[in-house]
């Protein structure tokens, strides 16, 4: 069986990971301790973190800010995944649909999600819907593209096997092409989740009264660098947790891949 570099129990990998993060923290400490540095030290960030936990910011606790962002990301992500997978399947399986809709999709695709913020605010106001739409736009692209790629590159040998065994077009899609694409689709969803986080922070920095992006902008307005850094660390931690959950989900949905890589 094939072994990956990131196998569980790979002591060398974990040791080197701890070493590289420790070096980053050390570099941060050394730089931030110098006289002219415009950066809080790790200790100041930890103290600020404790302060944020004790006293709410703009009337909302830290957990409330995190939950506000998480809710927006998860709602946008789930809707984008559902629509993106269906759209990707249509692109990959139905040639006429692809020929008609792909040109429009190709024009919209390269536009950065945050470029839509002004338009979305005009259309949907400054409430929750606008932020969820921005997250949706950010998440839907990677899901569509990966689903499309997965369906389009389904193993021709397996497709031939399905065809010869007498599967009709619907069975070919649902029983052969789609299961074969699941790993690619999940890779797209992982990508979507990180772009969703980028987008929500962007949207919250423009217009919000709560959320992690709001914390960053609040820190910037008050020259509270420690708060900015606390928010950045929180974003990194939540993204890591979500990626971990998705990796676990991949193991449950694609047990054959887990076994393949063991």
């Amino acid at each position, binding site marked *: 069986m094939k072994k990956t570099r990131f196998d569980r129990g790979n002591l060398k990998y974990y040791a080197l990971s701890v070493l590289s993060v420790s070096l980053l923290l050390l570099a941060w400490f050394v730089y931030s301790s110098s006289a002219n540095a415009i950066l809080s030290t790790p200790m100041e960030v930890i103290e600020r973190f404790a302060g944020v936990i004790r006293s709410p910011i703009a009337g909302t606790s830290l957990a409330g800010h995190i939950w506000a962002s998480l809710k927006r990301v998860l709602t946008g992500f789930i809707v984008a995944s559902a629509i993106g997978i269906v759209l990707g399947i249509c692109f990959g399986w139905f040639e006429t649909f692809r020929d008609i809709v792909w040109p429009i999709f190709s024009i919209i695709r390269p536009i950065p999600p945050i470029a839509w913020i002004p338009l979305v605010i005009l259309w949907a106001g400054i409430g929750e819907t606008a932020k969820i739409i921005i997250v949706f736009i950010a998440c839907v692209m990677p899901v569509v593209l990966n689903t499309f790629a997965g369906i389009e590159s389904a193993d021709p040998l397996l497709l031939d*096997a399905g065809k010869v*065994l*007498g599967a009709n077009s619907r069975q070919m899609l649902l029983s*052969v092409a789609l299961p074969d694409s699941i790993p690619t689709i999940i890779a797209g969803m992982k990508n979507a989740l990180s772009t969703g986080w980028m987008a929500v922070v962007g949207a919250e920095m423009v217009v919000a009264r709560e959320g992690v992006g709001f914390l960053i902008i609040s820190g910037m307005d008050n020259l509270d660098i420690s708060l900015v850094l606390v928010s950045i660390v929180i974003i990194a931690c939540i993204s890591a947790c979500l990626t971990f959950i998705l990796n676990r989900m991949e193991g449950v949905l694609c*047990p054959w891949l887990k*076994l393949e890589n063991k």
Partner: protein
Amino acid sequence: MPEDKVIVNNLTKKFGDLLVLDDVSFTIGKGEFVCLVGPTGCGKTTFLNLLVKLIEPTAGEILIDGEPADPKRHSLSFVFQEPSAFPWLTVEDNIKFNLRIKKFPKNVIEERTEQMLKLVGLTQQRKLYPHQLSVSAEQRIVIARSFAMFPDLLLMDEPYGQMDIKLRYYLEDEVLRIWRETGSTVIFITHNIEEAVYLSQRCLVMSSKPTTVKTIRTIDLPYPRNVADPAFISIRQEITDMIKWW
């Protein structure tokens, strides 16, 4: 002589100007085991792909039970050169795949799956995924899957091409055992003449491109065959001489 299962009439296939199959005609009886041998690149795989409608012929027709061949209407199976087990399905779900596609009753699906698992010796591995098994075991899953619906016609395209001699001998005996038990009609492509003589009741010897059927050699040796038997060696030599290009 058994009734005709497959009738191939004047089958011709061109890819652009390249004539691959030229006016091929023959019949295969019900429950017969036929091997196709010929020089490498003579168009044997093209011929099988035509039979199962993966590609369309330029001219001619293929009839199964008197009707034009159609995987949706006829019960066909194909074992490709490379193992084609579905990686996301366990051994037993792979075997059940076409039985489910063809909407067999549940009790038949269970019964056939048990029978096939036993025949290919994978009962203990039924819950494993193909990647957890060796390449030869994966090919056995495909063979079990193909035989599970007792196909009208089973086509095998050099299924043991990648295996070592010992395993080949084992799998050749296995395929003969399953063939006898299921009564399926089998067309087996190979470039290994010994394998063809060991397995088949009739051997279709193909010419180089454009492919035609050079001759049909009936092999009436009793099963199980002995590769060291002088009659066996003589037939093998005869067929070898027919496809010799050197």
